[in-house]
């Protein structure tokens, strides 16, 4: 039962003797094997939410817990996929994927089996001995996803994982992630500013307000998806044509537009 729970979470930053409230009274529960996407205007603190679940940052008020245990430090039970990949450039694809398994003390045969499985699943066969800089951005992010999934973590935390990719690669990766999520359902907290991406991938979408970040609205995507059987549609562009997809997308856009500061051009 992997549940991520935010309870009355505040985050205040101190800067030049002043206090900035980045997050205010965040209450959110990501259920077991649920895919929750957080969208919000830039600077709303959505990445901070993910980093607190990862244990890379800490709330100044309230608690973040995973499976009832308060998060205090980063660990392999909460695997992170970073926007900037953060692969180790001095290690090969294979060694990058193996790194966390070695921390967990997993035996050689089991390591090999798991690495081969995820390298195959992410379409990285033949690239095991390549170094990250020899791969395209999309391929590098596949390695990062394999590196996270191979740990068999309780929860996956993804911080705009496709934000650094070009539009076409991005679509391919979104389709792959949906495929992966169906084969290996996990509890996922996914941060993005791309509305279509959130509607396509998530079971629920959390829309945040601009600073100080609060939860503006939580939308249920899963029931619409099941009603219209999106899962049986192979291509993302066809899913995006479904009436409920269009409706949800427009709704999220309107919520986000309300959050835009006057004079904010993007």
């Amino acid at each position, binding site marked *: 039962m992997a549940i991520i729970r935010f309870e009355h979470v505040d985050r205040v930053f101190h800067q030049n003797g002043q206090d900035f409230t980045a997050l205010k009274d965040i209450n959110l529960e990501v259920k077991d094997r649920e895919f929750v996407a957080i969208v919000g205007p830039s600077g709303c603190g959505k990445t901070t939410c993910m980093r607190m679940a*990862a*244990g*890379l940052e800490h709330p100044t008020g309230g608690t973040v817990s995973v499976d009832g245990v308060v998060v205090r*430090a*980063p*660990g*392999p039970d*909460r*695997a*992170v996929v*970073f926007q*900037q990949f*953060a*692969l*180790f*450039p*001095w*290690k090969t694809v294979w060694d990058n994927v193996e*790194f*966390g398994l*070695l*921390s*967990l003390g997993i035996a050689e045969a089991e390591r090999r089996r798991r690495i081969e499985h995820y390298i195959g699943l992410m379409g990285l066969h033949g690239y095991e001995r390549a*170094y*990250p*800089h*020899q791969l395209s951005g999309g391929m590098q992010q596949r390695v990062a996803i394999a*590196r996270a999934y191979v*740990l068999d973590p309780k929860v996956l935390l993804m911080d705009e994982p496709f934000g650094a990719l070009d539009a076409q690669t991005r679509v391919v990766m979104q389709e792959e992630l949906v495929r992966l999520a169906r084969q290996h359902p996990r509890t996922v907290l996914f941060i993005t500013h791309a509305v279509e991406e959130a509607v396509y991938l998530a079971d629920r979408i959390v829309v945040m307000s601009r600073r100080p970040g609060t939860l503006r609205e939580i939308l249920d995507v899963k029931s619409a998806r099941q009603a219209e059987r999106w899962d049986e549609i192979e291509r993302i562009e066809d899913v995006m044509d479904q009436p409920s997809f269009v409706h949800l997308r427009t709704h999220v856009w309107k919520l986000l537009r309300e959050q835009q500061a006057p004079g904010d051009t993007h």
Partner: protein
Amino acid sequence: MLQPRLATNRWLQLSAVGAFGFLAVWTTAALSGLTSRDFLPTPWDVLQRFVHLAREPFSGATLGMHLLSSLQRFGMGFGLAALVGVPLGLLMARFRWLDRLVTPAFEAVRFVAPIAWVPFAALWFGTGIGGPVLIIFMGAFPPVLINTYRGARQVDLKYIEAAQMLGASHWRAMTQVMLPATVPSIVAGLRISAGLGWQSLVGAELIVASSGVGYLMVKGQAAISTATVMSGMLAIGVVGVIIDAALRRVQHTIETRRGL
């Protein structure tokens, strides 16, 4: 780029003109009769002396044997500097208290030039191996420590966070992430260290050794043989260039592998 780029053959031409110009001025001065050729031999005289020293023992050994003895001392001093400098630099970057503990003493000591350690080394070690090794160490140590420390401080936080997220222990984060992330800086530091160490070695041998290129030069000076002294200088220069080229090669290999 501050200097405009030159075509490779133009670049080679200019280098050749510079080298020949230097040799021409030297030869003209030596043959001009203004000084005795014993005091300023021609390049050809030096080369002949060099070949002679390579074949016949002088002050107990051939030039090759003197060089070997020098290289051993250099290897020990430089190796010790790397062995202490790299881990200390990494640990100082990791632990602020160690940084605060070491930095003041280090900053004071590093302004004492390697050659200024000669009297101290002579008092402590006499003519033993410890003296030259200490002096070479003092020359080679600062660059490797400073470069390792600065490199480690600048390691991108995302690698450290990735290592933590992947459950790495402090030891693994240090040896598998901090160290390799710092390697390009370390190698750059080692190159400077090797240069300074090799320069210090000769200073060390001028006074406290009983073999080596520096020792050969002192004996050449005593015999009023400028050609011997200059042969020693030539050997130092050539070996210095070889050491630097080897380390540059290592640096290049590492950078290529990482796509830098």
